[in-house]
């Protein structure tokens, strides 16, 4: 039984983690690129982060608190952006303002990468993440394109254990039955979408820190020899069980029709990918790459409010502050150990219904606040996200690599769900349901990204997908098109 197993494992190893058949887009890979301005090659790393809020509340015309008070290097910080200085990364994080996702012009059918008309606000992952027009109209969150992280994964992630990682800190959607917001958080609960033929599929995010730790660091060897021995033994058992499960596929698949076989093969592709990861030799420890602390049991899941339009200070929170910190720790280490080169991190979901009292001291639910609260309170919620993003940047900056740090080879983009101001299509002057005047944060030194400046996107290139394209090119993906959107924000690269 052992010999064939070894043979098959060698074969799997030879696939180098490409058992999950991402299309190998050779044309998209530039010749080997140094992602670090040093003599030592480092892998490029790409991240899309996200917070589920817009930048102003309904009817509140106080200035956009997410917008720096001045342009260029050393831009002036608002309360919302203050964590950039507190975390010591003001000079490493750029702010890109003036972004927008347009609404349909001339016809009710949205044009390229536009939002559909009507109340399509919470349903726009397709334009925001994939550069595709919104389809499905009102309440339509159909996604038709791959998200940028999947294109990056196909181009530069083939050699890593995880072609991409998809994480989410908000543990639950925090709503049950009874209203339009709730039947499902369809496509509002992930940032990553892959395509097969004409169809796009959401990629379920890793939510449990414990499972994420198990998944990412299973093969790492702890320092304590006793712990290491026990871990090795458990890992061996896990492998032998998975090996038996894997072999069961063959007996089943050839009795199924083509469509069913394809669905089951997807399951087993994932299973084999798990086997490959468990078989991978532990990474060589470096100055930056170390096994993070075992996070232990997850923070308890919070209660789900029975009414999405009521607020209960005791519900709607599952330790997201701690979850975000744990995921960020592991994400930073996943980059440092080169476990992945492409990741998404959803801090809060589209139309987040999270209780923000534990993280801001303000007794509000995010979605209700974003509509009816005041901009100052909303700013406290935004600030929490800025702080988390800043903490990731700071961690990566503290992980040495070559002559600099891991951050030098990163392109990290932090997007927000909405923008600030009016919705021209309806003539509203201030509404939370707007995708005008969007602002994003960008960090990392990959591909000569400009760091530490406030840049206003020009009207010729101000779609969020163009920002993503700029970051994609910075990590060596040779494409000028994301979905239906073409071109980059030239002023963001030196």
């Amino acid at each position, binding site marked *: *039984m052992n010999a064939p197993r070894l043979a098959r494992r060698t074969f799997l190893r030879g696939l180098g983690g490409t058992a999950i058949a991402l299309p190998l887009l050779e044309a998209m890979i530039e010749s080997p690129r140094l992602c670090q301005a040093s003599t030592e090659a480092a892998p490029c790393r790409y991240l899309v982060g996200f917070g589920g809020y817009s930048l102003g509340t309904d009817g509140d015309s106080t200035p956009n608190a997410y917008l720096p008070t001045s342009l260029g290097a050393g831009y002036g910080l608002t309360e919302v952006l203050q964590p950039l200085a507190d975390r010591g990364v003001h000079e490493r994080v750029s702010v890109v303002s003036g972004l927008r996702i347009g609404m349909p012009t001339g016809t*009710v059918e949205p044009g390229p990468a536009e939002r559909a008309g009507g109340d399509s606000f919470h349903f726009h992952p397709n334009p925001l993440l994939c550069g595709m027009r919104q389809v499905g109209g009102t*309440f339509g969150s159909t996604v038709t394109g791959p998200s940028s992280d999947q294109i990056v994964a196909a181009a530069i992630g083939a050699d890593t254990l995880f072609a991409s990682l998809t994480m989410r800190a908000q543990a639950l959607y925090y709503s049950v039955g*009874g*209203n339009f917001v709730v*039947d499902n958080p369809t496509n509002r609960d992930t940032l990553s979408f892959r395509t097969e033929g004409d169809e796009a599929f959401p990629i379920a995010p890793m939510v449990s820190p414990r499972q994420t730790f198990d998944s990412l660091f299973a093969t790492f060897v702890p320092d304590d020899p006793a712990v290491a021995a026990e871990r090795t033994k458990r890992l061996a058992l896990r492998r032998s069980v998975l090996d038996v499960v894997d072999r069961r596929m063959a007996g*089943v698949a050839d009795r*199924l029709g083509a469509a069913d076989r394809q669905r089951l093969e997807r399951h087993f592709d994932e299973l084999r990918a*798990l086997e490959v990861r468990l078989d991978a030799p532990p990474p060589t420890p470096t100055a930056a790459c170390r096994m993070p602390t075992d996070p232990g049991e997850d923070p308890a899941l919070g209660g789900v409010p029975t*009414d999405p339009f009521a607020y209960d200070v005791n519900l709607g929170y599952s330790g997201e502050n701690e979850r975000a910190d744990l995921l960020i720790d592991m994400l930073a280490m996943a980059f440092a150990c080169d476990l992945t080169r492409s990741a998404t991190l959803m801090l809060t979901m589209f139309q987040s219904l999270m209780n923000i009292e534990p993280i801001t001291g303000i007794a509000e639910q995010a979605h209700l606040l974003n509509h009816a609260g005041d901009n100052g309170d909303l700013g406290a919620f935004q600030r929490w996200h800025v702080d988390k993003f800043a903490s990731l940047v700071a961690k990566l900056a503290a992980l040495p690599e070559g002559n600099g740090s891991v951050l030098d080879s990163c392109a990290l983009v932090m997007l927000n769900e909405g923008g600030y101001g009016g919705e021209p299509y309806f003539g509203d002057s201030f509404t939370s349901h707007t995708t005008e005047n969007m602002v994003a944060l960008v960090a990392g030194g990959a591909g000569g990204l400009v760091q530490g400046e406030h840049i206003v996107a020009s009207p010729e290139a101000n779609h969020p997908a163009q920002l993503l394209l700029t970051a994609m090119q910075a990590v060596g993906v040779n494409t000028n098109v994301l979905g239906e959107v073409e071109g980059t924000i030239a002023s963001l690269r030196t």
Partner: protein
Amino acid sequence: MNGNSDAIGKRIRRNGVVGARWGAALLALSVGLGCATEDGDDDEGDPRAELPIDANVDGVGTVGLRRLTVREYNATVRDLLGEGAAPSARFLPEDRRTPFDNDFTTQTASRVLVEGVEALARDIAARTVADPARRDLVVGCAPSSADDDDCMRSFVTAQGRRMLRRPLTAEEVDAFTRLGLDAAAQTEFFGGVEAVLTAWLQDPAFLYRIETGVPVPGRPGLFRLDGFEVATRMAYLIWGSAPDDGLLDWAESGGLDEAEGRREAATAMLADPRARGQIDRFHAQWLGYDSLSHPPFLTNAMRLETRALVERVIFDEHAAWDQLFLSTDSYIGPTLASYYGIAEPITELGWVDTSAVDRVGILSQGSFLSVAPNVDDTSPTKRGKVVRERLMCQPIPPPPPDVMADTPPTPTDSSCRLDEYRAHREQGTCAGCHALMDEVGFGLERYDAVGVYREFEYLPEGLESNEACAIEGKGEIVGVGTFEGPAGLGRLLVDEGIVQPCVVQQLYGYAMGHAVDDADEPMLQRLQADFAASDYRFDELVLALVADEAFAYRQELDPEGN
């Protein structure tokens, strides 16, 4: 004994009761048919060769590979391993609702799913062997040593049949026994058991309902299911859980190959408490009240009221299912009595005639009336949509892309909400669809968004009556007729013969795990005729579905997945 072993104890006792009845039937069958061998080493060929095949069967539903839903997974590990409540919550992604949670077209494997399944398998297997009571029931023998081949083999054979829902082949018994003994050699005997359980909990034949069957000659893509596959279909339809030993015995004896055997087995299965839970879940998902937006005490009271009515009509009185819509009695206690404004004191739960307070039938219960509210009041549009789509099986097209559908249209001169809705009638592109929905919703308006009775609209920002806006409470199903209130709506849907064929379609979609389409029409017509012939008894509908010849067949998806 702790709760988990209690659960297993109950399972065993229950199987004992049901199994005894089946045992007698089995004995009778085995006399007539010759006893099926129980030995996995049976060399007399594939028992599937004996399956009766009708090459002219029609109305066979298309079914793809179905994964256990989260609820099915939880019920299965509860029944087979004594696992406690909802172990899946932390690791498995939630199922999509369409409105049912078992639509296989929405089930896509992901890394998180596969890793979640693996983590959960390790957790559950470890918990099972750590609890001596659970462990001993699952293992079924006392090992003499870590390398007790006989005990491991007997555990693999008996528990494997439950986990994979069919007898293991000799090769499978060997392979799992070897896994168990190899792992036991590194730990101890029960470490080996744990490894085998961990493998089964990830097995394709456990996680998925593998239906292969035997190809029907001359009918491409059509397969006759074997008895175990039929048993699994029946178990997840009627119990929402795995077949138990008794049902597997029936399958093994060939007792499920013919309609009469399936009918007999399903009749026994409907007597199991799990059937009540499952039929309740079906109705709750169908009408949308399985998750309500209320404080728990109220949600529980409402769910209990509706479940009691469903059980009374279907299981206790074996009455016509349309009594759900006509019943004047309701099972309520003090909570709902005050909620419904019943004057006489009610101190404990019981059946009460609620017709005097305009509560007749399921549609006038708080559960249904709480479905699909708007932000701060009812939405006649959404209520009408629920009635059209769920109760009448008429899909409503989505609104055009240029409208704001989560707010009523621009206020009119009137201060009354319903006048705003009526303004839809004046808007050319809206009028057609909104008439289909809003006119229905208007008839339910005397019940607010949580089901409390009112005669006037509320003033903004509160529950004070706006006496300028009396609610007429009259509605119309355009093209069918007018009605007053939820009781009138229920009566109309029953009298016009609309809701009966629709529930057949809904149940069939639930049984097949996907929305029905034109190809299902012949089967639906047969079932609708059977339902009518039984005077609309829901238990008879379930039996008719299970006994229908097509139930034992499968039409596979075409390569495009359709």
